[in-house]
């Protein structure tokens, strides 16, 4: 049976060192660069006409733009639009890398915990910096919800603090685990087909069953690839909304 974990191996393509830091160009880096070029290139290509009546491609680019802009407006209001470039970058980056990973043989950058953790920590730090810059110490009101009786307030505050600091964990693990599990499942079911065919006889006869499963799971994984990009972006919006309006 083919190793379902093999696909997540980071391969060193050529060694590189920047200021003494190991910056080896890996297949992961290759796909990050490809994702950036692809997402930026597609948006630019789609909007090249800049026409008042959009072409099909242009309306796709505009739909993506409006989708993320709507998300930002709905969660943070009009003042959240100054974070729109950041949110849009998160969405495009994760969506493109998730989708690239769906192509057989391609590397899925978002199934690397270090990558998703770094993205989640970036969100976490942005929330803290923006929160204190906007509200000063008023940002700490985030941990003191309104209308809570004074005798349970310490407990509630403790829970709020714990939930706040566990955000980057759940934020990064959700994306990482979804992508990882999906790709392992696909690989395992695809492996079943080969194993059953190799076994010959009656076992070969039921080989189409895992094939059907792979078909279904592939469709599901495309949905997950989009959904996880959406969920990551949506949560980023909600966390940033806390930074803008800590008073709940």
């Amino acid at each position: 049976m083919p190793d379902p974990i093999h696909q997540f191996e980071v391969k060193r393509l050529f060694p590189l060192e920047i200021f003494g830091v190991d910056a080896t160009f890996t297949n992961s880096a290759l796909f990050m660069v490809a994702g950036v070029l692809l997402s930026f290139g597609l948006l630019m290509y789609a909007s090249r006409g800049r026409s008042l009546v959009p072409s099909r491609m242009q309306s796709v680019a505009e739909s993506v733009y409006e989708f993320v802009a709507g998300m930002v407006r709905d969660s943070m209001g009009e003042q959240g639009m100054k974070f729109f470039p950041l949110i849009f970058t998160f969405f495009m980056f994760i969506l493109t890398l998730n989708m690239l990973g769906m192509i057989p043989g391609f590397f899925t950058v978002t199934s690397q915990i270090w990558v998703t953790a770094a993205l989640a920590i970036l969100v976490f730090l942005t929330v803290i910096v923006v929160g204190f810059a906007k509200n000063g110490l008023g940002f700490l009101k985030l941990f003191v919800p309104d209308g809570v009786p004074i005798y349970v307030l310490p407990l509630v505050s403790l829970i709020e603090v714990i939930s706040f600091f566990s955000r980057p964990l759940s934020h990064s693990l959700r994306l990482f685990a979804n992508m990882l599990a999906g790709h392992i499942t696909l690989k395992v079911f695809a492996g079943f087909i080969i194993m059953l065919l190799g076994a010959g006889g009656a076992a070969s006869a039921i080989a189409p069953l895992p094939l059907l499963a792979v078909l279904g799971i592939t469709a599901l994984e495309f949905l997950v690839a989009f959904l996880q990009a959406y969920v990551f972006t949506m949560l980023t919006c909600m966390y940033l909304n806390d930074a803008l309006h800590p008073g709940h």
Partner: protein
Amino acid sequence: MTEPVTTGTEVPHGGTADKVFPPLDPSTVSPQLVWLAITFVALYFLLKKIAIPRIGGVIEERQNRIQRDIDAAERLKDEIDGAMRTYEKSLADARGNATAIARTTQEKLSAEVDRERAEVEAATAKKLADAEARIAETKRKALSSVGDIASEIAGPVVKQLTGKDVSADEVKRALTAGAGE
């Protein structure tokens, strides 16, 4: 995955990557994060400086254009409403004028008809009166003739019956006396 873990993992290099669960391999942290930072920042600036202004600009321009068109449409609608009101006003005026003209014409006509009828009636009444007067005259004449004839006949009749000659005056006196009774 079941091979024993070798002791060479403290120096991160590619050869030992499959000894740990690859997605969690700590030796890949540095190269991945360096390139994540490079690519993410690059994408951020590419989108912020080029793609977002471009797409957002088109969307904004379209909205402005639509707003302009809506404004123009509203202005035209106001104009149409104004023209419609003017039209309705002049229609009402014309209708009022028409009614007034019709009424005066009718009044004029009926006055004329009344006058003519009165004239005709007057003429007819005069003719009737003349005719009645003529009939009365004729009747009177006829009745007086009857007296003359009677007196003319009465003389011979009396002579014949009585053999007496009576003068015309006596006959007449007798007749008028008889008629006077």
